[in-house]
């Protein structure tokens, strides 16, 4: 691979240096992000447009590239290349990063430089060498940030206002994509706004505001703009989205499921939470001893309303100052021979997977059907992945807060969920030794 790359005779991005300015330089890399087109009508007599994108050729290095030129040139460039394309850039201008400007509008790169594409001097074209392309393609699934440097959605909610306005990394799965809504930007251009619902193992639905310009609404360039009350994430030009990040990362996302291997009794989980204030994860094979599926729907499905503060400019453009998320919000008790964990929270999407129906479908069930559904689970033994933490140290009784991360059981029911959503729940075989394990 190395030989082939060398044969094409190009530099690696990390080798680029402003002092090599007069030498012919050529880099090959993959586009991992794109920003909006910016027009600068008052600077020159001719309107100049800038178009930036991020570009990488190795797992731990990437650089921002700005293209400057006329409307036509930039639009041509913009329509010919998209994220995931392997491109060759010839003769770019290597300049030292203007930290203030770069950091404000473009993704923060590890490189001290940025590349400029000038209409007259530089060239950018698709790489047609299949081997080179293939070797670079996996980079699209590699996050540009340290794979551990992210906030679980639950941590964002927990941090609340203290995270307001900060730029952070999120690792989450997409649950739903909302409708595109039109609005007019301050410069008079049309813009579009879209809400994407994210989820991870603890937060069932977390709104991410996807704010896209009229021209480039198809782009995957977003930015985590600010967090209002730790409850929404918004979009601007600093973000790079890595779709289906590689094993290394998803491993940490699924950490709560796959890395949880320790089996505990309810009593041991309670002890564990008393011993240390840190949250602990574990598996328990216990009975569901309470599940209020047949109480009124408002106790089973909850809608939470989040207010946008309107502090950030673009929010003022939309009339919608509130957004809501609806999901299951159930309490259940888990019991085994050592005791009961009370009021464990079971929320979407785990609840959907366990119950085998969506909130929408659930609301259409009759009372009898809901009671029947309850008895499919009640007093059955389940393999439950839980996160426990001590809530109030001053209370003597049951100060343990338990979140259900996943439930597996031998429930016999037909799931009405589409196959894609039937995640999480599964059959389990009961390890006969779990109860007698010495600890």
């Amino acid at each position: 691979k190395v030989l082939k790359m060398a044969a094409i005779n190009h530099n690696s991005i990390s080798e680029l240096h402003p002092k090599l300015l007069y030498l012919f330089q050529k880099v090959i890399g993959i586009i991992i992000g794109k920003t909006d087109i910016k027009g600068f009508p008052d600077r020159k007599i001719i309107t100049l447009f800038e178009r930036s994108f991020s570009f990488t050729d190795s797992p731990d290095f990437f650089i921002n590239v700005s293209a400057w030129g006329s409307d036509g040139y930039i639009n041509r460039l913009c329509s010919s290349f998209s994220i995931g394309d392997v491109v060759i850039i010839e003769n770019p201008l290597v300049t030292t990063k203007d930290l203030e400007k770069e950091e404000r509008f473009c993704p923060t790169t590890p490189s001290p430089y940025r590349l400029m594409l000038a209409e007259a001097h530089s060239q950018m074209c698709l790489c047609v060498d299949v081997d080179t392309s293939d070797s670079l393609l996996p980079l699209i699934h590699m996050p540009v940030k340290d794979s551990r440097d992210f906030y679980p959605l639950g941590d964002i909610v927990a941090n609340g206002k203290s995270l307001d306005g900060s730029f952070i990394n999120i690792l989450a799965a997409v649950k739903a994509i909302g409708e595109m809504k039109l609005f007019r930007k301050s410069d008079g251009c049309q813009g579009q706004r879209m809400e994407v619902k994210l989820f991870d193992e603890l937060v069932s639905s977390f709104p991410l505001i996807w704010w896209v310009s009229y021209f480039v609404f198809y782009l995957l360039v977003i930015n985590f703009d600010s967090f209002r009350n730790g409850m929404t994430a918004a979009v601007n030009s600093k973000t790079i989205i890595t779709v289906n990040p590689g094993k290394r990362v998803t491993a940490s996302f699924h950490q709560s499921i796959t890395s949880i291997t320790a089996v505990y009794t309810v009593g041991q989980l309670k002890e564990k939470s008393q011993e240390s204030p840190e949250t602990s994860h574990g598996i328990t094979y216990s009975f569901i001893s309470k599940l209020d599926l047949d109480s009124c729907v408002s106790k089973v499905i909850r809608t939470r309303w989040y207010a946008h503060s309107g502090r950030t400019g673009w929010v003022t453009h939309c009339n919608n100052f509130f957004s809501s998320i609806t999901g299951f919000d159930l309490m259940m008790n888990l019991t085994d021979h050592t005791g009961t964990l009370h009021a464990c929270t079971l929320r979407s999407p785990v609840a959907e997977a366990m119950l085998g129906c969506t909130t929408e479908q659930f609301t259409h069930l009759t009372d009898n059907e809901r009671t029947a559904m309850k008895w499919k689970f009640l007093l059955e033994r389940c393999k439950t992945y839980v996160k426990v933490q001590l809530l109030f140290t001053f209370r003597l009784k049951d100060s343990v807060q338990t979140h259900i991360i996943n439930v597996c059981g031998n429930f016999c029911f037909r799931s009405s969920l589409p196959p894609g959503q039937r995640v999480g729940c599964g059959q389990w075989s009961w390890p006969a030794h779990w109860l007698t394990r010495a600890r």
Partner: protein
Amino acid sequence: FVEQKSVPKKAPFDNSLRILTAVIDGMKHWSQFKDKVMCFFEIFATLDSAVTIGRHGAKNFLLRDGKEVVQCLFYEHEQELPRLIRGQVYRCVGNYDRVRDVLVCMSIRAAKPSEVRNAQEAIKACDTHMRKLVRLLHEA
């Protein structure tokens, strides 16, 4: 003057509900501590009678494991009693009433082979745990 010794902090006794997997004999034995240790029982046993209708519409039947037999009651409040076949092994979770010597069943269904296989381990673990607990109760 009595020197105060620092008493090691004793974990408060957890008297939350327990569900014990047991044989019928074990269930009857452990239920004597019910006033201190609230518990339901999970038993695996064979239906050894026809299902009849008793007082207040409760369904009555007998469950047996080995030589031990327990009279069972099932109230059809929320769900109907499923069709039970005499001679088959059932998994039953209920509350044992010591005074009346009946097991008030809350959940009953055919036992799965894997559950029956694992039941012995579960029973052993529950017995060990309860023995420890009872010792603790006597010390206190």
